[in-house]
């Protein structure tokens, strides 16, 4: 067998092993650790349904606010698994192997000037491409992500005291009411003390 081929294969294997060890992130083959879901306050107006119900056990009107209206739970970001890293590792391995095999091929043929010129050109091309690639945040056909900056805080306006309005279903409220954050539910519920009456969504004509 051609000694040059054996040398090329040996260099490729060594390089492949080195790149694989370097590129392999810690815990590549360990089971993924589940991160807790992140929560954040919901800021800004929301469209919710208000339902007025009566509860004879209550002593004061109570506004029941579901937890989902106050906080938002961001889904856990998709974890890039072991399989997701393989294409980048393989591309790197193939590129480095191409450089090694191409260099060995050039070394075995042509004059000294040709070899030197090819080597300089190859190194310049690799360094130049690597530098240019590192400065490009995304391929040209993909939209660039927004640059990180200070978090946007909407200006907080002090709400003026709204004029008192008559509520539907002949409901009258005192100046002070209770609020309660509940786990379940989708819309707001206003529970008022009194005899049991059928629930009436806000906006339905009063009985």
């Amino acid at each position, binding site marked *: 067998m051609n000694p040059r081929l054996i040398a090329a294969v040996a260099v490729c294997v060594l390089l492949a092993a080195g790149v694989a060890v370097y590129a392999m992130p810690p815990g590549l083959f360990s089971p993924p650790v589940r991160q807790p879901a992140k929560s954040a306050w919901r800021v800004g107006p929301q469209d919710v349904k208000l339902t007025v119900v009566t509860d004879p056990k209550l002593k004061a009107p109570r506004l029941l606010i579901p937890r989902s209206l106050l906080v938002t739970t961001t889904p856990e970001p998709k974890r*890039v*698994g072991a*399989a*997701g890293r*393989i*294409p*980048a590792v*393989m*591309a*790197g391995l*193939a*590129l480095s*192997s*191409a*450089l090694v*095999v*191409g260099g060995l*091929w050039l070394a*075995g*043929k042509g004059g000294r000037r040709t070899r030197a010129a090819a080597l300089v050109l190859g190194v310049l091309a690799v360094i130049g491409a690597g530098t240019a690639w590192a400065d490009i945040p995304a391929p*040209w*056909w993909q939209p660039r992500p927004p640059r990180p900056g200070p978090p946007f805080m909407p200006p907080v306006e002090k709400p003026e005291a709204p004029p008192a309005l008559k509520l539907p279903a002949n409901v009258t409220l005192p100046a002070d009411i209770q609020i309660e954050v509940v786990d379940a539910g989708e819309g707001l519920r206003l529970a008022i003390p009194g005899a049991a009456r059928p629930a009436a969504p806000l906006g339905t004509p009063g009985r």
Partner: protein
Amino acid sequence: MSAAALPRTAEDAPAPPAVGLAALAVTAGLALIACLAPLRASIVAVFLFAGPHNWLEARYFLSRLPARAGRLRGYFTLAFAGIVGLSAAFLVLIAGPGVWCLDGEAWAVVHGIVQTALILWVALLAHMRGHTNPRRDRGWVWPAALLLVAFAWAFPSLWSAALVYTHPLLALWLLGRELQRSRPELLPALRLVLMSLPALLALLWWRHSGGPEMSPGDLLGMRIADHAGAGVLPGVSAAFLVSAHAFLEMLHYAVWVFAMPLVGLKSPPWSLDGVPLTWRGPRWRWILAGLLLAGLFLMLVLWAGFLIDYPAARSVYFAVAIVHVLAEFPFLIRSL
């Protein structure tokens, strides 16, 4: 007496300019059809010529196989093993997401493995070709192949789109080799066609870049647009991609259905005269005749499928047609 003073034979004489102009006119006509009605052109071209061009391609390859493999036994064994194995692998790749429920990451890995196998198979064929007469230095094949492997892993969608657009051009390359071998006087006509391709593609780009974006309303139109790479290259007009693909597809069919039988076959396609494998005996002649008849039968089945359910038959055809795409590589490399 110098070589320049030698009398030229009729075969060496250049073809009249009319041949080149006729080839150019046909190419420009195909580009015009693809420009005006890309979806219809693609549908009609596949319906009419998908089957016949495969059959004629198989017939041409039969005529290029030697009667005895001899020292080429390893080359052709590797070629046929690659055609069969890679065709199966590509079918797995196509059916993978649906049948084996591969997610995106697993599919990307399987895709990379299959494409790597394809590139290394072609590189190995080229390497083996370099060790047979006429011998040439093919040392550049491996670095080039490894660069392509890196590209296929880094940009799988772009690589697939590149394969879709490269395949029609392989036919022109094979035609060039065949012309050089048997009808060199026609080479200027082919060069004229090749030189016109960038200009015609640029015209298609200019025609479609400023116009309304293509939005095929039916499933078939969406499949054709996807096949042309409309989802892969979002910055490029889908209308241009579909028309460019339809143009190159029609050119590919024109080469295999009209040009290659005229140039590359010594006998009519239905005749086995001049096929070296038939020299091995009457049994081989019967086997080859059976193969050609089976091909004709498959062609009729394909046409029936197109008539019954065109979109489904087209999808099946493009999945199975990978066989003829792969078969072109060994014969092209052998002719270089």
